[in-house]
C-alpha cells in the first residue's frame, strides 16, 4: 500500500498529541473548569494535535490523485549531509571556538552548495575566510557581543 504524505504527517501528529497529553496529565497540579491552571495550554495543544492529525490523516486517505514526491532520495541525503555539517560545526565550535571552526564550516557548506555551478577552489577559500572574519569583526568589535571561544583554549 502506498502511504501518502498526509497520512504519515497525520499519524505522527496524533502520536505527538497523545505523548503531550500523557505528559501533561502527569503534572502534579489541579485542573478544573473553574481554573484550568498550567495544564490548560499544553492540553489545548495536545487536543489540537490529535484532532488535526486525525483530520489530516483522513483527508490524506481521501486524496485520489498521485502525489508529487517532496524530495528525491539524493535530496534527502544532501539535506542530511548539510544538517550533519551544521551539527559538527556546533560541536567543534564548543571545543575550539568560532574563529577556527567557521572558515572550515563555511568552506564545507560553500563547496557542497556549489556542486554543479561555476566556482573556484580559491574563490571558495577566500570567501569562507572573509565571511568568518567579517562576521567576527561585526559581532565582537562593532556590537560588543561574544562568540564561542571554545573549551580547549
Amino acid at each position, binding site marked *: 500500500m502506498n502511504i501518502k504524505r498526509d497520512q504519515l504527517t497525520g499519524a505522527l501528529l496524533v502520536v505527538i498529541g497523545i505523548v503531550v497529553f500523557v505528559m501533561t496529565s502527569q503534572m502534579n497540579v489541579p485542573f478544573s473548569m473553574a481554573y484550568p491552571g498550567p495544564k*490548560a495550554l499544553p492540553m489545548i495543544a495536545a487536543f489540537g494535535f490529535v484532532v488535526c492529525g486525525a*483530520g489530516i490523516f483522513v483527508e490524506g486517505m481521501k486524496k485520489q490523485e498521485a502525489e508529487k514526491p517532496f*524530495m528525491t532520495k539524493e535530496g534527502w541525503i544532501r539535506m542530511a549531509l548539510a544538517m550533519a555539517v*551544521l551539527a559538527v560545526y556546533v560541536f567543534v565550535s564548543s571545543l575550539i571556538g*568560532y574563529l577556527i571552526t567557521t572558515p572550515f564550516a563555511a568552506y564545507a*557548506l560553500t563547496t557542497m552548495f556549489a556542486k554543479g555551478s561555476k*566556482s573556484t577552489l580559491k574563490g571558495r577559500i577566500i570567501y569562507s575566510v572573509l565571511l568568518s572574519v567579517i562576521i567576527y569583526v*561585526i559581532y565582537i568589535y562593532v*556590537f560588543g557581543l561574544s562568540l564561542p571561544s571554545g573549551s580547549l583554549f
Partner: protein
Amino acid sequence: MIENLPYIVSQLVQPFNLILMIVGTAIGIIFGAIPGLSGTLAVMLFMPLTYSMNAGTAVIFLIALWIGGCSGAFIGSVLLGIPGSASAVSTCWDGYPMSKQGKSGKALAIGMVASFTGTFFSAIIAALLSETIADIAFLMGPWEYFALCFVAITMVLAISKGNMFKGLVSACIGLLFASVGFSPIDAEPRFVFDNMYLMSGLGMTVVLIGVFSVSSIVASYGKGFGALPVVDNKSVRGLGITFGEIKEQLVNIIRSFLIGLGIGFLPGMGSGLSNLVAYSSAKNASKDPDSFGKGNPGGIWAPEVANNASIGGAMIPMAALGIPGDSTTALLIGALTIHGLEMGPMVFKNSGHIVYLMFGTVAVVACVVLVMQVLGMRLFPQILKVPYHYMYPALLIISMVSAYVDAGSLYKCGMMLVFAVVGIFMAYGGIPTAPLILAFILGPTLESNMLKAFQYTGTAATFFTRPISCVMMVIGIGCVFSPIIRTVLGKMKAGKQ
C-alpha cells in the same frame, strides 16, 4: 506626541544610528528582493545584534530591516516574475509582463513610489491614531485581551493555504513551544526535564530561526537550487513616470491605501492578504479589467501601495494593544520585550518616546528606501544574481551565530538544529508556518490573560457575556471554521445556479 520630537530627532541624527539605518535598509531591500528570503527573516536573523544596543538604536535598526524588506519585495516580482515575499505576489501579475515589454524601469519606478506612499502615510496615520486606541484599550480586561490574541491567531488560519487542519496544527505547535518553561501566574515548570536551558522557555530566536531560516535553506539545498535567474539588465533605466500618471492612478492609490491600512490593522492579517485584495479591487473597478495581467500599471500601484500601507496598519494594534498585525510585528513585539518595552496601552505612559521614535523611523526609512532604490536601481539585477552557494552558507553561519548570541550557549545552537528538523517536517506535511509564529509569540499573553480571566470569575462563560470579548470570540471561532463555511456557501451558491 509633539513633545517627543526632540528625542526622535536626536536619535535619528546620531551618526551610529544613521549608519545602522542605512545598512539595515540595504540589508532589508536585499532580503526582500531575493525570492525565498524576506524582511521577516532579516529581522529574525539580525535581532540578536541589537542586544548590546540601547532601545532607541535597536528600534531604528529593526525598523530599517523591516521596511527595507517590505519595500524590496517588488523587485523580484517585477524583474523575475517571482515574488520576493508573499506581500508582492500580485505585483508579479502586471510587473513581470511590463518587464517583458521592455518597461522594467517604469515598473520598478511605480513600485518604488507606491511603496513610499503606502509606508510613509500609513506611519503618519499610525502615529496619530495609536495613542487614542491605547486609551480605549484601558477599558479592556483579560477577557478582551485573550479574545484578541485568539482572533489574531485564528485570522491567520482563515487565510493560510491548504486545509483547516494544517493551519490549526501549526498554531498548536506554536502553543506547545510556548508552553515550555515556567507557566505564567502559577510558575509551574512544564516540559523542562530538569534541564536548566529549558527553564526560561525555548527562546524566540532559536525556535524561529530553526523553523524558518535553517530548515528552508537546507530543504532548498535538498531540492536543488536550480540555475540562477535570467534578468534583463538593459531595460532597467530611467524612472519614466510622470505626475500625470500618478494623478491618473489617484483613486486606485487611495483605495489601495485604505485597504492596506484596514487589513494591516486587523490582528494577524498583513501585507500577504492586502496586496491580493487591493489588486482584485483595482481590477474590478477598472474600465479596462482585461488589461490586468498584461502589464497594466494599475496592477502594480494597487498591491504595492496596499502592502506597504499595511505596515502602518499593523503598527497600530502592535503599539496600542500589544497585539501583532502580522508575523513581523509579532517578532518586533518579542524583540522590543527584550529591550524592556512591553507593547500595549501602558507603553505610551512608560515609554511613549520610543513608540513615537518607531513611527518616526518608519517615515524616515520610507524616504531612505526611496532614495536608495532610485540611486541603486541599476544594481537590482545584480542582487538577484548573487550565487546561492555564497549566499546560503552565509545565512546558515549567521543563523548559528544569532542562536549563540541569543542564549550565550552552543546548547541553543544544537536546539536550533532540532527546530530545523521540525521545520522540515512541517514543509514535508505542507503545514503553514505563519500560525506558528503568531501562536508561539502570543502564547504567553494568551495564557496569562486566560488564567487571569478564570481567576476573576471562575467560568469560561464570561468570555461570551462581555460584548467586545464575545464579538472577538465569535469572529475567532468563525475563522477556525471558515474553510468549512466557505465550502458550504460555495455548494449553496452552486446549487442555486
